[in-house]
C-alpha cells in the first residue's frame, strides 16, 4: 500500500535509489583499489593521443571525479604540437601525393632549433 502512495506522489522506491548508489560507490571503490589499472589506463591513453599530437607526458594527469549521478574520468593532457593533417589518398581523385608523416618528436626537434633555417629553404639574402 505504501508503495502505491509513493509511486503516486512520484517518489522512487528506495531499493532503486539503493541500487544506483551502490553501483557508483562500488565503481569508486574499485577504482581506488586498482591504482595499477589506473596507471595502465593513463599510459595507454597518453600513447594513443601521442600518435596524433605531441604531448607533455611529464605533466599529464588522469583522475576520476564523482559528478552527482555518475563518475567521470578527467584527463588533463597538455599538447605541445600537432601533426600536419594528412591529405586523403590519391585514388580518391584529390592532389597531391601525401607527405610522409614525421616520427613523434620531430616537431619538437624543429621547435628547439628555432633559429635554424628550415631544410631546403635558403635564408633570404639582403639586397
Amino acid at each position: 500500500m505504501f508503495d502505491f502512495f509513493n509511486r503516486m506522489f512520484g517518489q522512487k522506491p528506495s531499493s532503486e535509489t539503493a541500487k544506483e548508489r551502490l553501483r557508483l560507490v562500488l565503481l569508486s571503490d574499485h577504482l581506488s583499489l586498482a591504482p595499477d589499472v589506473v596507471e595502465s589506463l593513463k599510459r595507454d591513453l597518453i600513447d594513443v593521443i601521442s600518435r596524433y599530437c605531441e604531448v607533455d607526458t611529464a605533466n599529464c594527469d588522469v583522475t576520476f571525479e564523482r559528478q552527482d549521478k555518475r563518475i567521470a574520468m578527467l584527463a588533463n593532457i597538455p599538447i605541445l604540437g600537432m601533426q600536419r593533417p594528412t591529405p586523403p589518398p590519391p585514388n580518391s581523385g584529390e592532389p597531391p601525393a601525401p607527405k610522409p608523416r614525421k616520427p613523434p618528436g620531430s616537431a619538437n626537434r624543429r621547435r628547439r632549433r628555432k633559429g635554424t633555417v628550415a631544410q631546403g629553404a635558403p635564408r633570404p639574402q639582403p639586397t
Partner: protein
Amino acid sequence: MINNVLPDEAPAVAALPRKRGRAIVVTSGKGGVGKTTTTANIGAALAAGGANVVLVDADVGLRNLDIVLGLEARVRHHVLDVLEGCATLDEALVTDKRVPSLRLLAAAQTREKDDVDTAAFRDLIGTLRDRFDYVLIDCPAGIEKGFANAIAGADEAIVVCTPEVAAVRDADRVVGLLGDDRRVTLIVNRLRPALVRKGKMLSVDDVNDILHLPLLGVIADAPDVIVSTNRGEPVALDPASTVGEAYRAIALRITGALTDAPEIPREQTFFTKLFGGRS
C-alpha cells in the same frame, strides 16, 4: 569575538571560555547490531538540535558511515590522509547536505586498521574536541587494533547491543575492555516487543542484568531503518519515524535535556504491523 559585539546588538554574549567538546565512541563487539546507524542518527539529532557535531568513521577498510549518511559522493579525503599530512582537516571534513552543523570525517577505504597510529588518532580526536561540541566515533566490529584506535581519545562510550545471546556476550567482553575510567552507557537496538512477550527474545532487563549499564535508549526493530539506509537519509531527521523519535530522545539524554529513563517500546510500528515481521 566577544569584544567585537556592538553595544546595541542583543543579546549580551556571556564571556565564557569555550567548553571542550565531548568524545563518545559507539561500540559493540558484535558486528551488525547498529553501531554505524546509531552514530549517524545520534549525530544528526544532536546537530539538528543546534550542536556542532563531527562523526568519525574508524572502520578503516570497510567504511560505511559515509554511505549511511548519503555522503559517499562527497568524500575526497579521509582520516589517514589527515594523519599522514596529505590533506588538512578542513579538506577532509564533509559537511552534511541537510544539517550544516554535522560533519563527517570518513575512513580510508583501501587501507587497513593497522595503518592507523593509535597515539596520532588520539591526538586527532583531541583536536576535534577543540572545534566541535560532540565528536562521535563509529567503532568497527571486533576487539583488535580497530577497536583500540576507536576508543583512544574517547572518554565516553555507548555500547550498542541487540537482545540476542551472541551480541550480549560480545558486548560484555567489550565492557570489560573499556575499563573503569570511561562513562559507559547502553542502547538496546532492534527490540521486538512481540517476541519478548512470547518469551522468544531477551528483554531489555535480561540484557542489562548481564551488562549492568545505565540505559541510554531502547530502539524497536523497524523496516524504515533499511529504507533510510537505502536512501542515505538518517531516520533521526524524519519527524514521522518512531525510530527517529527514539534517536532524538537519546540525543536529548546525551545533552542532559532529558533526564527520565528511556521508554521500553511496547507495540511494533504501524509499518511492521501492516507488512508483518515474517515473509
